[in-house]
């Protein structure tokens, strides 16, 4: 099958949906400019015109309301934020209006609004260009939250999000944009609310989100060389969560580590840990362990930033602790960093 990048997969999904349905339009700060949201909105203006692909003032609050109003009047807006941190300016509309519109109108009218937000990382992004906070949004009833990891998931889940009659927030990790993978040329849907087994294994379950799947895969490869067969589950959708795929896996392995691309405290990893404790209590051979960002704002300087983010090494060390095995020599391993970023294929 054809190989394309995550970024091109997002772009292709939007183009195919805009060709299929004239109600779909795309907007946001910088969407039609020469940088095209890192290339993900390339050709939209040229193909579909300024009514369906337009720039906005720096006004996230009102522009989110615009999406809601257009959605309840028959259109299917896609609102793009080049950083999740900027999406926070839309929190009133999201938490007070978008999420409760359908409920408050007696379930009669849906809100087919898609919001794309990019998770920044590295090269000095610092504490206002690096947030993910997917759990914060997933906390709010009425919002669907997805974190596609692979190019195939990016395309299929984007198409599902656009066709969904409810609000869907897509969190796209910037480092995943360069990743390549096999993606079908024709249009296809990957259902929201369905997780994926990224790698089968029998010894321990690693539930990973977004970029942490890349780290988990490297960790699993190191562990495999040392006789440990880890299973990796990518929930893909944060809300609504595919609990069963996690429960089934942990029931087999008896061990669970959650590697979330976000802060740990009150985060998605806590939700998974609580759910696993509840549904797998008698089958757990060890406590559920959680991995995520340090509980600090994200620092700018590289050496501190490297302390802030967990990586494959963090996962390997946690697996050793959980399974009670000897420390693996990692001195010859090359871990991902901004200088040595992952380019795929996944």
């Amino acid at each position: 099958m054809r190989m394309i990048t995550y970024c091109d997969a997002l772009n292709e999904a939007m183009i195919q949906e805009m060709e299929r349905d004239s109600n779909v339009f795309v907007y946001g700060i910088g969407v039609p400019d020469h940088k095209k949201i890192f290339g993900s909105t390339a050709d939209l203006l040229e193909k579909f015109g300024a009514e369906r692909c337009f720039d906005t003032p720096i006004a996230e609050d009102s522009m989110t309301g615009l999406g809601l109003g257009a959605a309840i009047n028959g259109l299917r807006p896609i609102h793009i934020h080049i950083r999740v941190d900027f999406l926070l300016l839309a929190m009133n509309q999201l938490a007070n209006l978008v999420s409760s519109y359908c409920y408050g109108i007696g379930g009669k009218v849906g809100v087919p609004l898609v919001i794309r937000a990019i998770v920044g990382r590295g090269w000095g992004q610092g504490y206002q260009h690096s947030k993910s906070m997917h759990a914060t949004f997933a906390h709010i009833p009425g919002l669907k939250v997805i974190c596609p990891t692979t190019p195939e998931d990016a395309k299929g889940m984007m198409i599902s999000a656009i066709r969904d009659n409810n609000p869907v927030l897509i969190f796209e990790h910037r480092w995943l944009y360069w990743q390549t993978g096999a993606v079908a040329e024709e249009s296809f849907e990957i259902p929201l609310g369905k997780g994926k087994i990224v790698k089968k294994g029998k010894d321990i379950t690693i539930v990973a989100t977004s970029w942490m799947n890349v780290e988990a895969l490297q960790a699993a490869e190191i562990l495999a060389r040392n006789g440990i067969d880890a299973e990796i589950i990518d929930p893909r959708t944060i809300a609504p969560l595919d609990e069963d795929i996690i429960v089934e896996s942990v029931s087999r392995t008896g061990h669970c580590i959650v590697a979330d691309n976000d802060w740990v405290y009150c985060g998605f990893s806590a939700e998974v840990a609580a759910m696993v404790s509840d549904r797998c209590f008698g089958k757990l051979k060890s406590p559920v362990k959680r991995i995520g960002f340090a509980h600090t704002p994200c620092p700018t300087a590289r050496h501190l930033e490297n302390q802030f983010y967990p990586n494959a090494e963090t996962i390997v060390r946690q697996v050793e602790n959980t399974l009670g095995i000897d420390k693996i020599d990692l001195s010859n391993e090359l871990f991902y960093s901004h200088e040595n970023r992952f380019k795929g294929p996944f």
Partner: protein
Amino acid sequence: MKSVNLDLYRTMYLIRKSEETIQKYYAEDQMKTPMHMSMGEEAIVSGVVGALNLDDQVLGTYRSHALYLAKTGETDLFFAEMYGKVTGMAQGKSGSMHLSAPEKGLLCCSAIVASSIPIAMGAAYANKYQKNGKRVAVFFGDGATDEGVFWETVNFSCLKKLPILFVCEDNGFAVHTPREHRHGFSSLHKVVSSFDCNVFEEKSTDPEVIYRTTQKALSTMEQNDKPCFLRLHYYRYLEHVGINEDFDAGYRPKGDYLDWLKLDPIRLQREKLGTIGFSEQQILELEQSVDEQIARSTEFAAESAFADACELHTGVFI
């Protein structure tokens, strides 16, 4: 204009009587929803909505009893929602502050000040894109103009030349805080005038005046393709939230109220009907039919069931 004036009176009478009915029964504690009463603003809502087409769309605030009743004319779903019954427009999930009637063009009412204003812009964007000729009117108090999102929305609506009416129902207070304590400028409509839009101001309790001003706004918007801002002054008769007067609180003198009460829109409009050729009998018949409608609706609401417990979970998604 004769039949328009009768319709305006009917709408205002329906609003006033519906709220007086709420006042009458509220102490029974069966309507467990915070009431932000419209009393005093009937002429504005009736005049603006009366000038709109039936398929034009409106959005409001937590103070939107008047808007709902003017746009729909119905009271069954209205009172059932106040009583929290399954027969309400949102099965009791929304109450007084979140009235809606999407099939009749009331898209939503929000209890977060100014938050429905950008939604109206999105609705107008869709209408313009679909070339369906519908206009959107969004109602809000002067407190909403303190919010950044109001200015964001005016800005972008003017930029995109959207078919939208910003209707500021100006009672001079944001909750209890007067204009002088909030504004670093002297004239709201002059500031809005610096945007590329049409601005109108009225200080009248005559619904016909509001009706004509709205007609003028709509035709001007049709001609020059620019949004309209209407600043319409009124006096809120009752407390910010609740069914009582609050002149003993000291933030506004009762004398102001008494001055405005001399110009009470319902009383003046009733008198006007007499001068333009309606008999007392005709007016009484109209009032009686509205009274009966409200009585039937409150009875319907009282007799209706509450939603099943499982209804809690329905409607989060469609």
